[in-house]
């Protein structure tokens, strides 16, 4: 830090050493005007320290501009390879929209069967108890699971980063369900309409894979909940217009 260089009689030139140096710095970058230059010259006439500083500042500027001019790597091919083409981007958007629709349908199905189960609850005699759960409770469980999957699809369409984690569990569920549905259909234990409702799950699964594939790879591993909004930037614009987080970068000491 250079500190204050106050020289007696300085005020008559309307410029102290700090302001003179700031003006000289701006002049080195072509960002000063003639009126300011006149005041700088007036100050320099009486201030040897600032005359020396100007020489040093010129040297330092030249060294900084040339001394660090190392060439960077050529990234064109890498960047273009990683960038999704417009087609892939369109597919990604379409898949997300589809996933959101499927999520809504699935959630409604889950909700419907949940309500249906509650209404039938009184009518149904809980005569069959399997592994500690009566029919009513087993129906509740299945309805809750279906509702949860709908919510998971909707959330996955919104926050695609977390979708990948859902897919293995969902894939296993669909595989087991497919086998059991086939057996139950043959044995006449289930109505075909009920099995058809499972197709929604399969569609959601396929769309989920499409969304995950279309999503741009981003650097760090996902940190659930922590990446965007914990920083107060809001989830909407992590990049884009430059303004919103500028205030945090300013320091009072640097704002003249």
């Amino acid at each position, binding site marked *: *830090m*250079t500190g204050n260089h106050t020289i007696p009689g300085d005020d008559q030139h309307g410029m102290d050493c700090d302001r003179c*140096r*700031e003006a000289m*710095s*701006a002049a*080195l*970058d072509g*960002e000063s005007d003639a009126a300011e230059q006149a005041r700088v010259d007036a100050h320099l006439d009486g201030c040897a320290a600032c005359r020396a*500083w100007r020489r*040093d*500042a010129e*040297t*330092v*500027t030249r*060294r*900084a*501009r*040339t*001394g*660090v*001019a*190392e*060439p*960077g*790597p*050529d*990234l*064109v091919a*890498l*960047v*273009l390879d*990683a*960038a*999704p*083409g*417009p087609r892939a*981007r369109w597919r990604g958007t379409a898949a997300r929209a589809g996933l959101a629709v499927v999520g809504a349908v699935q959630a409604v199905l889950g909700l419907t069967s949940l309500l249906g189960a509650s209404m039938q609850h009184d009518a149904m005699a809980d005569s069959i108890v399997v592994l500690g759960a009566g029919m009513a409770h087993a129906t509740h469980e299945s309805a809750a699971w279906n509702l949860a999957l709908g919510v998971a699809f909707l959330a996955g369409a919104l926050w695609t980063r977390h979708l990948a984690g859902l897919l293995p569990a969902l894939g296993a569920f669909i595989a087991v369900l497919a086998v059991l549905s086939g057996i139950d259909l043959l044995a006449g234990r289930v109505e075909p309409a009920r099995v058809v409702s499972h197709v929604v799950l399969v569609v959601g699964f396929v769309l989920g894979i499409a969304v995950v594939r279309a999503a*741009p*790879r*981003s*650097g*760090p591993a996902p940190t659930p909940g922590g990446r965007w909004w914990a*920083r107060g930037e809001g989830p909407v614009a*992590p*990049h*884009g*217009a*430059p*303004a*919103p*987080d*500028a205030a945090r*970068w*300013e*320091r009072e000491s*640097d*704002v*003249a």
Partner: protein
Amino acid sequence: MDDARITELALRARDGHRDAAGEFVAATQQQVWRLLVHLADAAVAEELAQETYERALGSLRRYRGEAPARNWLLSIARRVAADHLRRRARRPVSPAEPAEDDRPVGRAPRPDPAESVAVRDALDALDGDRREAFVLTQVVGLSYEEAAAVCGCPIGTIRSRVARARADLVDALSEPPAAERPPRSG
């Protein structure tokens, strides 16, 4: 290449022209690279530059061309660097980070190693805001107005930060040259 041309390339890239995207990268990558070298460090600059372009191309859809594309891109690069530093601060003992002394060894060839190391060290020692203003205007070559747009601060702030950075560098680099450092044996 001038700003109007770069902005035009960005808009064409947004509309799906891959060759324009390539030209856009080619025209801006040196500045992005330099900014990231100084705001983060050379060891991760390439990775961060890729992340910058990934974010930029990913959000091109929302780019309307109001601000010059180069400023828009550099402000993304600046945010990528800030995110990187924040991540690194959160994991202070990450074994993957090379020690400070290992950094320059074996990296890209430099015109004059001793000189550029001295300048780099002096720049690295600057206060973050001052370094940012200085690098944007001197190394990347932006005007004060452009640097202010990239940082989202008033021009006067850039002006005073650049001057303070210069003063700090005068103090650091006008010392007797660092040649008397004991040569490393080993």
